């Protein structure tokens, strides 16, 4: 089995003092382009914390496919008491141009873009690289994923696939021996498209390894 994302996180240290109320992370996403990376990260958060997950449909969208309504898994049996949870993960399907996260509305502006929200959620796991070089590499892969893989043209995609292939020739995961947000972001952006056109061998192997990670089940049928 693959080593999972282990870290020691103290929510009080990461998010400030516990004020006695549920810390609810609100994510607005457009059902036309579901943020797969955030669904994977949600699964990881559930492993580390008691997370109250809920999915809502905003009045700005009228019909949402049923699989998106249950994308955070079945309702927690304790969900009648919000106070019993450490984190709230509230996913709202809404007509928004970009994925948006709202957390502490009094002190934080809304965070826009799936990449940035993914970084925030990943840090809550406390397993981000401590070495500044590796941390920057991670950031760079995340940018590559969302700007070039997800939004780029076919030439750009092909170029990224080549560089992925050569990197994955040297190590199992993008940043070395352990999977990280870099792998989640890149894999999700390739999978999102559906047509994994002529992926090179190393990338194929790595994609399969990603699929084998526990929390990819929610996005790959």
């Amino acid at each position: 089995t693959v080593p999972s994302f282990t870290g020691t996180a103290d929510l009080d240290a990461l998010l400030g003092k516990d004020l006695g109320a549920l810390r609810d992370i609100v994510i607005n996403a457009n059902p036309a382009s579901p943020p797969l990376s955030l669904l994977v990260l949600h699964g990881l958060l559930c492993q580390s914390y008691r997370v109250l997950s809920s999915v809502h449909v905003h009045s700005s969208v009228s019909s949402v496919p049923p699989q998106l309504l249950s994308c955070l898994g079945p309702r927690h049996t304790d969900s009648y008491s919000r106070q019993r949870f450490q984190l709230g993960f509230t996913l709202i399907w809404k007509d928004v141009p970009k994925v948006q996260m709202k957390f502490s509305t009094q002190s934080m502006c809304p965070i826009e873009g799936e990449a940035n929200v993914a970084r925030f959620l990943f840090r809550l796991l406390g397993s981000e690289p401590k070495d500044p070089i590796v941390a920057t590499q991670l950031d760079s892969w995340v940018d590559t994923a969302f700007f070039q893989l997800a939004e780029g043209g076919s030439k750009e995609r092909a170029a990224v696939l080549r560089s992925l292939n050569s990197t994955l020739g040297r190590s199992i995961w993008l940043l070395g021996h352990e999977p990280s947000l870099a792998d989640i972001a890149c894999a999700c952006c390739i999978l999102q498209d559906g047509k994994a056109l002529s992926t090179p061998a190393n990338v194929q192997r790595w994609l399969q390894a990603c699929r084998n990670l526990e929390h990819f089940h929610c996005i790959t049928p």
Partner: protein
Amino acid sequence: MTKEQVKGSSAEEEEQQAAQSKKALKKQQKEAEKAAKKAEKQAKLTADQQTTEEDDFAQDRYGVCVMLQSQEKLDRSLVRVCELSPDKAGQMVWVRARIHTSRAKGKQCFLVLRQQQFNVQALVAVGERASKQMVKFAANITKESIVDVEAVVQKVEQKIESCSQQDVELHIQRLFVVSQAEPRLPLQLEDAVRPEVEGEEEGRATVNQDTRLDNRVIDLRTTTSQAIFRLQSGVCQLFRDTLTKKGFVEIQTPKIISAASEGGANVFTVSYFKTSAYLAQSPQLYKQMCICADFDKVFCVGPVFRAEDSNTHRHLTEFVGLDIEMAFNYHYHEVIDSITDTMVQIFKGLRDNFQSEIQTVCKQYPSEPFKFLEPTLRLEFTEAVTLLRSAGVEMGDEEDLSTPNEKLLGRLVKEKYDTDFYVLDKYPLAVRPFYTMPDPHNPKYSNSYDMFMRGEEILSGAQRVHDAQLLTERALHHGIDLEKIKSYIDSFRYGAPPHAGGGIGLERVTMLYLGLHNVRQTSMFPRDPKRLTP
């Protein structure tokens, strides 16, 4: 000039005089000409009038009808104004409508015919079918009179922006007044639909609330009022339909009751033969008795009375309550889910079926569209307190929300979740009525909830105590005379299922859905401490 001066005048002066008299002569002549012309005109006019009486070829095509006493049953179908569309072009139709405005212009007279929220432009022009006199008659019909017209539907080249039927106009062939309005209206409909801001800018008249309510019948004719009350009817219907589908039974409860049901709000006392009775503040007790009588899921639509002397934008002394009571299996959240789902179905129904009404109201009272989440967002009271404290509000753990805090909380919730509708659960026990079930995990709190629309409370509900003994304890704790509520407590002695419920104010829901600012706008004939008529 005086006589002496004339006598002693020199030749020069004489000359002058002669010139002057010439001028005077000319003047006289001119005046005479004028008089002649006037006389001529007069003569022509009288002649005209004579011809009016004599040869008005369109005489039988217009006029004031005799009072309609159902003398005959005409086989004539009246077309609705909203159905007048380009596909009827060229057709001859009969329409009954009100004269919204009329504007005569030489040989033509333009009328705007109104029927409920729809209107259409109509035209009477001198020609083969209509005489000069008929045009004059059309121009003189008082505003708001009801007329029957026979007309040809005609496509127009340029859209008529001021009417709801923009693509067609009516060319009137016949025109009969069915009911004449008095010439002076207590308020002008155009003034009553003018958006407030615009009115101030242009220095034009707007009608204030009291004038509107004093002349409610006319005010209700405005497009805005028509839309508001059509939408309100929709709320009621959606409420009924949704609950009926969920297996609820509609019940009717008495409004004249023998004892005040709850503390807090004051009650109206009415004399009842040799004793006195009260007007019901809520059908609460009766709903609960129906639950004890195995009706399982009930709802009730009917008047509710509050004798609170509060003159605010959101209080009425009589309003329509939409009440729900439901037995549940294990957790009162089953009831919350049922109520919130009903509300969401209402919002969706309004969003999908009443868009034109919403737009109409928005024209006069602009507001953001109503936003909601499905399933409805549920927060707990302690979260609300934390949210408010982080916004700088100082309040105790078990303190009830003040109205300004409710509004602030609404804004905070909207900021984070972008919803105008949410549920606040787990209120402190101390601020709720005696029949509220305490929270099993923390006796300071209760299984009670409020629902909010645009930051204002629309529903207050709770799991009720269904155990006679606990109910007695709670009543004593609240200092309630047990004798007075004996029959209520007794209903729970013979097996009572766990149940919960809540009541919504129809006027408030309509007001807040549309983003209006005064509940009197959504009450057809509002009752408040200062108003008992109309």
